[in-house]
């Protein structure tokens, strides 16, 4: 196998070239310890197997940023057989800066001149032969976005893998050559790397290399001091200057600029996009569009995809053993629980897919860095970064979002401290699945004030996030690595459909793989916690008694009818009940009259004896149907009671009651505790659990009506619940992503425990203040809001000691 590394400066199209060569056949690996993905794929060409590695983009070859560390350690430690240096041909001069450093490594190399279309449009004529001769490497032209140059590149890779480099290309370092030679003489260790390259890196003061070759800093310091006194410039700057000068020479020999470059599109566009007065409206529009497209329309799309999932669910349910009136086999309960948990997540896939597509487009167009440019000033005050904007928006800074893609989008933030702070604050944004819970409580308790309450809820989260970011970055994250804000503003590109879809699918797949597996595991645990130890024996006996008498009543009512022979045993009645249930479920999905007719005839074919009862077309069947409905209602009521009893007695129920003495002071009784506890698996279940605890028998009232009527809670209780829900840790899926992006279980634990503790504390305080001062629920919320907003403002105005980049600090 021949190992090929794709290296190059950021945004030159490495990943595009990688995708072009590898197609969909690829494997995304997470590099341990760093935030950057390393992608690999196997490609067969001319009988050889090539392992391609897509490295993160680096401008240079020092080891200061994470990306550079990944790229560098790969090139040094894993010794690829061929390096493919991807270059933005429209920006050749700057690209050569890295190319020189790669060439000095002395490994077989291919130069891929990518973005040839852009270069041609700018009127650049690049003499490839001349370039190949000057640099002594193979040069290929490619247009990654259009898939052009694939076979040329493969051929060049093959040829390069079969040659040994006898004399690597040399940049002339003029007066420094004697110093380089002096260091070269001192290198005695065998490292498998070109000595000259090691010597140059050592002279630049590269710690990693110094260690590798076993020289200490003092030796180098003497040399650099000597150079400084002679040339009045630091060695690293001098080396860089010489490299740029070399690049200039190569550029002028190989490139002719056919037309004088006029004003580029990027310049013109930026005059509008970054205009002092237009920048914010445009930014607002973009954010609004992202939100509208993915969250709002995505949500609408789920209306259409949900029936598909529901049909799938019915099919799975049909495979499970039938329940026998009130007795449901454990397998069935488990199957139903797992199916529901997984489908609840899969239901969000349309939202995620659109979101990933939109992000990919924004990334490709080049708007992301502009967004950071516009907002950096505000976010920096709170320890965040201009690039925190998008993660916060996706997380739900506007009414609703999802922390999972939000946290995943933090990957590009250059500043490690700000990145971690963003990872830890995105979960405070309003998750979409919290919205049903809010609506439930608002509808039950705050009908006339819904608008203002919703406003409080949706804006307070951003303030909370800013405050916490500021607190975190000035305490626990204080010593984290930060990075200077020096960012290239790339030229605008038109994204390609293929590239965008490919990336969106890759991310979606990653999400499904990582998140769904964990959610499955947690769902199992939760099932056990809610299922055991089960209903007490006496209670169960009592319920069974009731079930038996209901059955007896039904048998009596079919006694003298024509259907009696088909319903003379318990099993037959059970069968009728389950046919009834599956028919009702299917019936709900049938939209048109034609669909209903088709459904009816298929049921009639399958159950010719019993189905007429469900159709209830004549007086006799109508009578049986009525009796059946009573029986089924009683059964459902009893099942609910069993479920209720199970939850009350379950481990989770016991826990909910155990913490009641504490939570009572915040107004939460055990039922709410259980709801909050179970909602950790997925937000949706908070409403579901509350619903099932509150459903008393088979009433038609919705949970909010039952809650409002129940009398146990006042609007103050409800407002406190809302307050707690605002702060509660996100679901387990979000926590998994926090772990993925922070690479630490400790941070994940922190992300769970801190908001919970904070939530309980604030709930306690505000609940008691409300009792003390006789606030209404709305007043409670408003006062909380005002406190948070004031604190945000104070922190924003206060000069922070570390808002900027700290000079001279490296780690």
């Amino acid at each position: 196998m021949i190992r090929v590394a794709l290296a190059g400066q950021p945004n030159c199209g490495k990943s595009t070239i990688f995708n072009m060569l590898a197609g969909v056949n690829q494997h995304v690996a997470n590099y341990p310890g760093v935030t950057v993905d390393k992608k690999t794929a196997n490609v067969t060409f001319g009988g050889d197997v090539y392992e391609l590695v897509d490295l993160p983009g680096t401008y240079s070859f020092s080891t200061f940023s994470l990306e550079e560390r990944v790229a560098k350690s790969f090139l040094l430690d894993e010794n690829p057989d061929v390096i493919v240096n991807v270059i933005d041909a429209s920006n050749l001069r700057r690209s050569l800066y890295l190319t020189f450093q790669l060439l000095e490594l002395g490994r077989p190399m291919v130069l891929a001149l990518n973005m040839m279309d852009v270069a041609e449009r700018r009127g650049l004529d690049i003499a490839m032969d001349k370039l190949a001769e000057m640099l002594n490497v193979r040069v290929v032209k490619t247009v990654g976005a259009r898939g052009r140059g694939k076979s040329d590149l493969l051929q060049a890779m093959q040829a390069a893998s079969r040659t040994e480099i006898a004399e690597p290309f040399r940049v002339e370092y003029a007066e420094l050559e004697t110093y380089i030679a002096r260091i070269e003489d001192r290198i005695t260790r065998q490292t498998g790397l070109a000595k000259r390259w090691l010597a140059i890196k050592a002279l630049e003061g590269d710690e990693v290399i110094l260690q590798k070759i076993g020289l200490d800093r003092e030796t180098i310091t003497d040399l650099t001091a000597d150079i400084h006194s002679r040339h009045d410039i630091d060695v690293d700057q001098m080396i860089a200057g010489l490299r740029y000068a070399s690049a200039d020479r190569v550029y002028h020999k190989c490139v002719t600029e056919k037309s004088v470059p006029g004003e580029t599109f990027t310049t013109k566009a930026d005059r509008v996009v970054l205009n002092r007065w237009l920048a914010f409206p445009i930014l607002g529009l973009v954010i609004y569009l992202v939100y509208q497209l993915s969250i709002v329309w995505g949500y609408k799309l789920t209306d259409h995809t949900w029936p598909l999932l529901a049909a799938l669910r019915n099919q799975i349910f049909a495979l499970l053993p039938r329940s026998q009136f009130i007795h449901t086999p454990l397998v069935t309960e488990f199957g139903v629980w797992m199916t529901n948990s997984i489908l609840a997540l899969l239901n969000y896939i349309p939202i995620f897919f659109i979101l990933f597509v939109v992000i990919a487009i924004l990334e490709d167009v080049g708007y992301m860095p502009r967004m950071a440019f516009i907002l950096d000033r505000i976010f920096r005050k709170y320890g965040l970064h201009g690039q925190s904007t998008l993660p916060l928006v996706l997380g739900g800074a506007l009414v609703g979002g999802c922390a999972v893609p939000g946290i995943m989008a933090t990957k590009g933030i250059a500043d490690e401290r700000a990145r971690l702070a963003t990872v830890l604050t995105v979960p405070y944004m309003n998750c979409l699945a919290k919205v049903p819970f809010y609506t439930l409580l608002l509808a039950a308790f705050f009908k006339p004030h819904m608008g203002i309450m919703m406003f409080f809820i949706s804006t307070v989260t951003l303030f909370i996030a800013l405050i916490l970011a500021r607190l975190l970055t000035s305490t626990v994250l204080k010593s984290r690595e930060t990075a200077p804000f020096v960012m290239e503003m790339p030229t605008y590109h038109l994204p390609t459909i293929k590239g965008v879809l490919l990336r969106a699918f890759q991310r979606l797949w990653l999400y499904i793989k990582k998140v769904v597996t964990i959610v499955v595991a947690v769902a199992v645990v939760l099932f056990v916690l809610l299922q055991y130890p089960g209903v007490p024996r006496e209670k169960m006996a009592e319920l069974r008694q009731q079930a038996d008498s209901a059955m007896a009543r039904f048998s009596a009512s079919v006694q003298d009818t024509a259907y009696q022979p088909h319903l003379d045993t318990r099993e037959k009645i059970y069968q009728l009940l389950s046919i009834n249930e599956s028919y009702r479920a299917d019936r709900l999905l049938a939209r048109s009259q034609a669909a209903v007719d088709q459904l009816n005839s298929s049921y009639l074919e399958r159950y010719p004896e019993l189905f007429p009862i469900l159709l209830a077309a004549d007086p006799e069947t109508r009578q049986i149907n009525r009796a059946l409905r009573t029986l089924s209602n009683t059964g459902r009521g009893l099942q609910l009671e069993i479920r209720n009893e199970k939850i009350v007695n379950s481990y989770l129920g016991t826990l909910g009651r155990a913490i009641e003495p504490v939570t009572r002071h915040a107004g939460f009784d055990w039922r709410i505790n259980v709801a909050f506890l179970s909602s950790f698996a997925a937000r949706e279940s908070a409403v579901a659990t509350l619903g099932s605890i509150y459903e008393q028998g088979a009433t038609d009232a919705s949970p909010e009506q039952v809650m409002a009527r129940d009398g146990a809670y006042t609007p103050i209780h409800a407002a406190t619940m809302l307050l707690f829900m605002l702060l509660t840790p996100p679901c387990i899926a979000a926590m998994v992503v926090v772990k993925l992006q922070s690479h630490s279980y400790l941070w994940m634990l922190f992300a769970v425990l801190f908001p919970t503790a904070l939530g309980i504390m604030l709930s306690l305080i505000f609940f008691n203040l409300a009792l003390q001062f006789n606030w209404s629920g709305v007043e409670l919320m408003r006062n909380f809001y005002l406190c948070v907003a004031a604190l945000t403002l104070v922190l924003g105005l206060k000069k922070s000691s570390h808002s900027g980049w700290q000079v001279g600090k490296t780690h």
Partner: protein
Amino acid sequence: MTIALSLSDLKTNERGRIRLCRARGLMKQKLISMGLIPGVEVTVLRSAPLLDPIEIAVQNYQVALRRSEALLVEVDRI
């Protein structure tokens, strides 16, 4: 020679030549790898709507940097 002027002092559309870079460590590397080294010409293109950061043209491309970083780069106005 005039008084030391920093990159942050240049106004929009003004040009300067980098004289000295006072940054160290990571910051210095970052500036070097973006081509901000002594002797190089820079043009200030604009400042952000909130006045910070600024965008400059250097070595034929555009770079955004915060004023706190730009303060470390000394320039001669040209």
